[in-house]
């Protein structure tokens, strides 16, 4: 495949169904093909990065652990929509610090430059 970059948008909460997990899997596969891959968390998707998750309580696989190893897999760009945080009364310090905050129209501006986008 060519070196086109891929953007994955993930807007589902982490443990309701398999949506968040399966979006992350798509990002990992993209990176494993050496495609420059970015991940954008919006809406309920920002909950995926909330610190101190203990999904073994349910039990479910820990998504946060997957985020901690994203860089190993070649994904170094995780964007978080700041407005989605604000709507949920979240401070950026409550998230695992592996992301870049996009303020204001940041997400819109970024997505407009991306040719290959997958929504989840």
């Amino acid at each position, binding site marked *: 495949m060519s070196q086109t970059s891929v953007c994955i948008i993930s807007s589902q909460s982490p443990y309701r169904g398999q*949506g968040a997990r399966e979006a992350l899997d798509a990002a990992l596969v993209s990176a494993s093909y050496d495609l420059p891959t970015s991940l954008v968390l919006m809406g309920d998707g920002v909950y995926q990065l909330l610190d101190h998750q203990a999904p073994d309580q349910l039990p479910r696989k820990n998504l946060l652990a997957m985020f901690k190893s994203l860089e190993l897999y070649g994904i170094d760009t995780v964007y978080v929509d700041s407005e989605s945080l604000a709507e949920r009364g979240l401070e950026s310090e409550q998230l695992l610090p592996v992301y870049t905050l996009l303020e204001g129209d940041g997400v819109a501006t970024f997505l407009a430059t991306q040719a290959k986008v997958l929504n989840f």
Partner: protein
Amino acid sequence: MNYALAVYGATGNSQAGQTALSFAKAVLASGHSISRIFFYQDGVQNASSLSNPPQDEVNLPSEWQALVQQHGIDAVVCIAAALRRGIVDAGEAERYQLPANNLAEGFELSGLGQLLESLIETDRLITFGA
């Protein structure tokens, strides 16, 4: 008290199966009985004999199977909802000439009447929506 559970979601897009399973175990641990668990809507997928998640995920059909067999609970899957979603037992597979069957052992297909019966006749019916 005598409980019944109604489960409307499975693993894919819902936490309902998982929550219902944990609740069912707690009902039994509290000394109550469960006469029936009724699987409806997407909840019928909890009864698939072919679900095979990775090792680090829970296999809900196996968990339900163990629970209902150990405690003699009636595990009923709505037949109309199941046929629509591709869950069939040997009898239905033969009747409709389908190539296989995939209702896990310990579950049985039956009508919605069983849900209404549980609603009327048990002390508590608790619903787990998708």
